[in-house]
């Protein structure tokens, strides 16, 4: 397996301003020295509770928020020092899926416009080729091409998330950061979307950074799992091992807190 992504000592600090002159009085270390590697076609699950820095880490890797320090190497290219033009080129390789399928789609664009946008931005193919690609992408995510001219409000949460996934796939990326992609979905729909993500990975060899607070979902989709706490990775191990034999006390606490249906422990 080849290494697709290498993150070295990544940091993202946010200034805290205070006093009369709004001077910077402190820094919040949202991501505080995180390092890991991700092989192509694999999934790294990132778990942690609110405020642990997992979403900021995802965004800092994609350079949606420029890191304060450290390096992000995608296919041999170091991203943190790239200028806007080179970065735009690299964005073809890396995409994001957001949590809230209601907020992440523009209500004024049709499904086709939404999915086409990355193709337009990067000037890929002729107009008719782009339309053909949109149709193909809709089929890949399990939607009928007839929905192309409809607007997001006409769809359920699960369908909207499929549209968001189709858009992320448009440029054939090698890496997708999925930030809580199923947290807003109902249980029965969640399984459909998780299976779709697994299928895409099998068929297209995409690597996923799968961010979630839900340990059971992360275990299901991931090859490796990283546990974040206060901006740091406190434990990282193959998914099987971390659940069978968690070593960090925080991981143990997280695991024991998950409400379980196999309980009926009472």
């Amino acid at each position: 397996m080849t290494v697709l992504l290498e993150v070295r000592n990544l940091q993202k600090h946010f200034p805290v301003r205070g006093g009369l002159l709004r001077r910077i009085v402190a820094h919040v270390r949202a991501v505080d020295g995180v390092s890991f590697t991700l092989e192509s076609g694999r999934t790294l699950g990132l778990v942690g509770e609110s405020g642990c820095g997992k979403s900021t880490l995802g965004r800092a890797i994609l350079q949606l928020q420029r890191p304060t320090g450290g390096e992000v190497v995608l296919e041999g290219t170091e991203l943190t020092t790239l200028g806007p033009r080179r970065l735009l080129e690299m964005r073809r390789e890396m995409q994001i899926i957001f949590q809230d399928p209601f907020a992440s789609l523009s209500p004024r664009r049709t499904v086709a416009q939404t999915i086409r946008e990355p193709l337009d931005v990067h000037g890929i193919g002729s107009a008719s080729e782009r339309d053909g690609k949109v149709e193909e992408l809709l089929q890949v995510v399990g939607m009928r091409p007839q929905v192309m001219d409809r607007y997001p409000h006409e769809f359920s949460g699960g369908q909207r998330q499929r549209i968001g996934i189709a858009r992320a796939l448009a440029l054939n990326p090698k890496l997708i950061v999925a930030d809580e992609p199923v947290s807003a979905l109902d249980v029965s729909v969640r399984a459909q979307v998780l299976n779709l993500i697994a299928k895409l990975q099998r068929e297209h060899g995409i690597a996923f950074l799968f961010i979630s607070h839900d340990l059971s979902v992360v275990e299901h989709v991931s090859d490796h799992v990283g546990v974040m706490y206060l901006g740091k990775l406190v434990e990282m191990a193959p998914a099987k091992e971390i659940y069978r034999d968690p070593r960090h006390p925080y991981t143990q606490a997280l695991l024991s807190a998950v409400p379980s249906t196999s309980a009926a422990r009472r």
Partner: protein
Amino acid sequence: MSGEPLLSVRDLVVEFSTERGVVRAVDRVSFDVHPNETVGLVGESGCGKTVTGLSILGLIPSPPGRIAAGSIRFQGRELVGLPESEFRRIRGQDIAMIFQEPMTALNPVFTVGNQMIDVLRRYRGLTRRQARGAAIELLAKVGIPAPEARIDEYPHQLSGGMRQRVVIAMALSCDPKLIVADEPTTALDVTTQAQVLEQMVILQREFHMAMILVTHDLGVVAETCHRAIVMYCGRIAEKAEIGPLFEHPRHPYTVGLLESIPRVGEHEKEDLAVIPGMVPDLLHLPPGCRFADRCRRRQPRCDEALPELDGREDDRSRVACYFPAEPPT
């Protein structure tokens, strides 16, 4: 369960008028809640669980909503059609509600103490000093550390978990007989959720309350409830004690839900079992079983008429399905 039920809901129908027509959010729902027991109302978005909970407190916004039929009896007294002034006396004192987002229940411009003392003075007739003491005691009961200091803080100074504990303390302040908790821990992190749920179970026993826990999370139900009611599209699909429900679910919807949840400690990177399709539009419901077109046990009869719950109210397990999974004998 034996004895008189505390709450008895019979054939409850709640309708909302929308621009597109009248939606029946709850359709002939019946259940009992006995003293000291926790009943889970579980289902996915739009199944009617929250509306059922709100009906019990007379909190259905009207218009557009209305209780179109049925009866809700609390300690033998009919609540449907009760005038607002009467309902106010019941709310808080006899039946309290806890919502998902604690800030909706807390006033941001008053300290925790002020809000609690107000309630305690009005409903329990305490003096200011007594009420402050009682408030501190309640805050300690719900697991807030250093309550004598916390009582003078404002809600924004507390974390989400602490806020929800304050809301629980307020709900307890009038010694209610029934608490309706609507997704009380959904907005909390998993470790905080575990603490708050554990506290709620302890308090429920200590205060001899009954509780209705409205949630989408079957794991939460399994760990906290005695019985659960699984709702789908405004109807009760299955109603059972926790043991039978999770060991031998009978309704194909319950079976599907349980199978589609990935379980911690069973790492398999295989496809999850899926319930195909989507929840039908409440405005265009089929005449037969509402789950039929997603169901693997579907037969012609399922499309003809709505199945009703089998058995009797005090059975351990009841299901509204013509072809349920039968428990092994």
